[in-house]
């Protein structure tokens, strides 16, 4: 009974923490982008403008939630929910510390890959149901992008799985004691990072949104809290990919003993979130075909070679 209660508290706590971090990222991104562009960003509401998040939330909750007459209503409503659900489901398998984590899935990594692939449905369905050519172009770009990166995203992680011999994320973290996986699996780390950027539709791979070309891409027709869900979903995605990179390549909660494990995890995660924001501040958007050429012609062969060499070395040293 007690452990059931503990689990429920854990589930709700992790969900709230993830959503709160994602909401906080709205403020953090604006501040950091401003810092890197020699500006201040929001600094009026509260200390350092931290209550900007609250103001944004109040605004977005009270906006008119309008569904266009020409939209496919049911799909239109479901699409943003799919994004939130798939990303929040992925948080279930992440081990934040030896004690904190929702489930100990023995196929955790596969579950993450499955959920991230399902997340692409929200983009496609949102663009399709909006009945708007810009949304549809965004959705088509999203699906073509998804097909390009999902392949090497999975392959880039196989090196980690081979080194550990397990799909369980807890085993992967424990196997990194003494030597984090980004040293033997540097190519895998780079490829996964690029795939992660494409997965979250962030610059330089934000072709599905592409506000300067496609109005707002697949969520052009969304307003109010439905748009807010896409918005928060994007930040949740950044948090998720940062957490995954931390878990898979940078030793998860491992670190010197003077801080509790959860702090090490959070420090590494925030570091990668900042790298995501820095990339947005510095790189221009690629063309849609450039991402696909990069994916199929360079990153997929690289990922395959990485798997091959890792496997060969593991066999050699056995």
């Amino acid at each position, binding site marked *: 009974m007690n452990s059931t209660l503990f689990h429920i508290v854990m589930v709700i706590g992790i969900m709230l923490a993830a959503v709160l971090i994602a909401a906080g990222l709205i403020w953090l991104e604006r501040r950091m982008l401003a810092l890197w562009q020699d500006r201040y960003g929001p600094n009026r509401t509260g200390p350092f403008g931290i209550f900007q998040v609250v103001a944004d939330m109040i605004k977005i909750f009270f906006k008119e939630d309008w569904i266009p007459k020409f939209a496919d209503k049911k799909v239109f409503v479901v699409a943003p929910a799919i994004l939130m659900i798939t990303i929040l489901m992925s948080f279930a398998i992440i081990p934040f510390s030896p004690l904190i984590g929702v489930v100990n899935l023995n196929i955790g990594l596969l579950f993450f890959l499955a959920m991230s692939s399902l997340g692409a449905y929200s983009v496609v369905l949102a663009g399709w149901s909006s009945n708007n050519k810009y949304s549809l172009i965004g959705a088509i770009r999203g699906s073509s992008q998804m097909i390009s990166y999902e392949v090497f995203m999975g392959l880039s992680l196989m090196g980690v799985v081979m080194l550990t011999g397990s799909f369980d994320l807890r085993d992967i973290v424990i196997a990194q004691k003494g030597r984090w996986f980004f040293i033997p699996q540097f190519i895998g780390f780079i490829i996964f990072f690029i795939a992660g950027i494409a997965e979250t539709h962030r610059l330089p791979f934000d072709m599905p949104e592409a506000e300067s070309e496609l109005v707002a891409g697949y969520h052009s027709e969304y307003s109010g809290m439905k748009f807010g869900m896409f918005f928060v979903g994007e930040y949740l995605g950044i948090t998720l990919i940062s957490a995954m990179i931390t878990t898979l390549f940078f030793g998860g909660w491992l670190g010197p003993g003077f801080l509790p494990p959860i702090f090490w995890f959070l420090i590494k995660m925030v570091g990668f979130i900042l790298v995501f924001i820095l990339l947005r*501040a*510095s790189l221009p958007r690629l063309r849609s075909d450039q991402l696909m050429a990069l994916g199929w012609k360079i990153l997929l062969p690289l990922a395959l070679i990485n798997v091959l060499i890792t496997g060969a070395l593991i066999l050699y040293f056995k």
Partner: protein
Amino acid sequence: MFSNLRSIWIVFLHMFHKRVTVEYPEKKSYLPPRWRGRIVLTRDPDKEERCVGCYLCAVACPVDCISLQATEDENGRRYPEFFRINFSRCIFCGYCEEACPTNAIQLIPDFEMGEYNRQNLVYEKEDLLIDGQGKYPGYNFYKVAGVDAGVKGKGEGDDENKPVDIKKLMP
């Protein structure tokens, strides 16, 4: 590939640069003395109105935002009965200042004149008149003008000769 990494690094270094934002309401940026902002009506050194109601500013104004009516006092000195500037139309071009023959109308470095009610942007003469002399201290139009409007007697103005006694033959 290398240029991408380099641009990421350069953007990262901007973290340590000085920010260009001027935090306006707390910190005000420098406005040069010739800045064309709010329009004022100045007074001459004797604290009298400089404006003589010649309508040249109203004629020069490209958006017709100046409206006035000239009148005279008992000495024959001209002054505006009312002087009205509609700042919701004004484009701050400064043509009125250039047209003014008596340096009465002047544009000053002040732009903070926002209002919630559009009607409040119509400034009357009381709102426009200031106590000082503006950019041209010491200038008094009636001291150099040819007419006697109670400011100076005949031949008493600046750079003005005494009137010639036409009864005398000798120069």
